[in-house]
């Protein structure tokens, strides 16, 4: 018997649904489930018929907002009704996990288990059956993992450790520049680390973007765009594309690294001049 899935949307931009469509071998995955509802892909029911749907897995994309219309009724009622009957709830995308970017306009919007960093009004009800897959959008492999994995090990934000224990920094092609503290002078080059000036949040953002690449080929930092920390509860921060510093020292340290350790290492690294790393990569002889 194929598990029945309902993919329900709250306050969303649909990014996660479209990210999901990029999954390699999507049709093979889709065939393992019975899709009662999906916002883009073919499904057997319409929104109006969802109330009576009996789903095993409820995927929720987008934030929860009181008074948000869904079909004929209200989103929250439908969501709770389906969530209670489901065996597993998968919150896909940072909006469904924490409330997300649209909270900035309406602070009452919250995620399934979390409202920003704090527990949401639904936490006690749904904590034992929810897997959180934050990201803006969530990576299709992460979504597939949540559907397929049985009781994965989760962190304190109910995110699968296998996906979120890494930092976005792990696997970035510019790691050498980070190691030797060579700043990127500006955007548009392959060289230099984007952490010091360009606001890259990779070193302290949970995610596996540079391990499981995006669209099987790239990631933000691989094309010179700083990581914006979209898997974390405080996304989006202010003044992106630039690093907040205090007297030239980055305000946020790499994950788990004490400031003294970081400064000591930085001092040592900056004392050395590595010619290969100061030249343009493709110019090197």
């Amino acid at each position, binding site marked *: 018997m194929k598990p029945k899935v309902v993919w329900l*949307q709250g*306050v*969303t*931009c*649909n*990014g*996660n*649904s*479209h*990210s999901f*469509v*990029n*999954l*390699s071998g*999507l*049709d093979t995955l889709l065939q393992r489930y019975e899709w009662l509802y999906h*916002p*883009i*892909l*073919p499904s057997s029911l*319409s*929104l*109006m018929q969802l109330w009576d749907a009996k789903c095993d897995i409820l995927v929720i994309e987008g934030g929860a907002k009181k008074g*948000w*219309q869904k*079909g004929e009724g209200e989103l929250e009622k439908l969501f709770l009704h389906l969530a209670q009957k489901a065996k597993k709830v998968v919150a896909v995308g940072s909006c469904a996990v924490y409330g997300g*970017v*649209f909270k*900035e*306009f*309406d602070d009452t919007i919250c995620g399934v288990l979390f409202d920003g960093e704090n527990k949401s009004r639904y936490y006690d009800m749904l904590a034992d059956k929810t897997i959180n897959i934050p990201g*803006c*959008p969530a990576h299709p492999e992460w979504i597939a993992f949540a559907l397929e994995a049985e009781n994965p090990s989760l962190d304190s934000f109910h995110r699968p450790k296998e996906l979120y224990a890494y930092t976005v920094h792990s696997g970035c092609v510019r790691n050498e520049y980070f190691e030797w503290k060579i700043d990127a002078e*500006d*955007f*548009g*080059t*392959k060289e230099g680390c984007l952490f010091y000036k360009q606001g890259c949040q990779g070193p302290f953002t949970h995610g596996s*973007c540079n391990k499981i690449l*995006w*669209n*099987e*080929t*790239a*990631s*933000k*930092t*691989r*094309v*010179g*765009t700083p990581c*914006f920390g*979209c898997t974390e509860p405080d996304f*989006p921060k*202010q*003044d*992106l*594309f*630039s690093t907040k510093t205090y007297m030239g020292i980055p305000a946020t340290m790499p994950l788990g690294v004490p400031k003294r350790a970081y400064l000591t290492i930085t001092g040592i690294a900056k004392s050395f001049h590595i010619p290969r790393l100061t030249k343009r990569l*493709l110019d090197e002889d």
Partner: protein
Amino acid sequence: MKIELIEKIEGEAFLDVECKKGRIKNAYVRFPHYRGIEEILRGRSPLDALVINPRVCGICGHAHLHATALALEKLVGFGPNEKVRKIREITRFCEMVQNHVKWFYLVIFTTLDLPYDFRSIQAIIQKINRLSAIFGGQWPHSSYVLPGGITCDPSVLDIVQAKRLSNQSRELLEKLLGDFELKNLSGDLRRLFDALDAKGLLYAGKSLDRFITFGNDSYVESFKILSGKKRPAKLHYIEEFSQPKSRAKGVVYKGKFYETGPLARTMQRGERFVKQLHRRYKDSVTTRIFARIYEAHLLLKKIQEHLQTLDIGMSSYEPIEIGDGEAIVAVEAARGSLVHRVCVKEGKIVDYSIITPTQWNLANGRDGEPSLIQTALQNARCEESDIIFRSFDICSVCTTH
């Protein structure tokens, strides 16, 4: 008065229809949701908009990214070099192509109950988005375009891979669709035509036959077509208006309703395939649907051209200082012209306004004048409302942002 919930249009919308003797007499479109992007931008630093604006929409967020960067560049009068322009177009066109392919099969073919090869289509979509990611880092929600240029510095390897992906995508799509020869349709294009014919839809959904495009790039220019005459279109004649019971605003140009999107663009370009259809079927669902999927083919060709002529030796980025001021720009998105207006004061965004293509196409009439969608639905058979509606390729999330 019947209320129809139209779903799977990047969100939902309500269509209030009045049916008499099986024919639509009155229609009103309502978009129920609002997320407040324009308010969120107020008080933020200009570059933050490059991250926030793509979140207006998951399927056309990339166009919003481009419009944002362009608006900020316009504030200081900056124009990027040819390499940057081409790469930006490559990724923007990729988004448009995958938009059209998704809509063509997942919306139109589904609505008409036509079978399709999901696996092949998904493979095409995947390849196109992978192509985009070579430059953009990821799709959806890249932020690789910023005022001054782009963040990436592609190498020959990137171009080689991109070329392969564009060739594969085009080949696969053409295999599914068949040739764009009206007298010799085959494949999915033939199936589509036959289905429209069988359901008596070939002439359905004719509307105002007025087209407008505001973007300026290597594909189109800012023109309107009114009564068959092509004239320059200027941004300052655009006017937004509130609509009762809907969170979406309507838009007019010099007080008139216009259609924006692939049909407008291909008509402007005088594309033979579309003009042939238009001669016979005017701006019916047939012409509209075929023009949209035809554009996917045209844009894939454009992407190939750009990859062929790209000079990666040029610089990717030039630092510019975002000053205070106001700027309004337009960029072509999948569904039509996308307009962004930004106002920066003392280094922060004080106002931001977004007008999306669906606001044009799905505006409701006013002052007694029927709008584009209303004209298309007028006197149509009641059961045709869904296909006529969907022929416009709606993006519900964009429309209300």
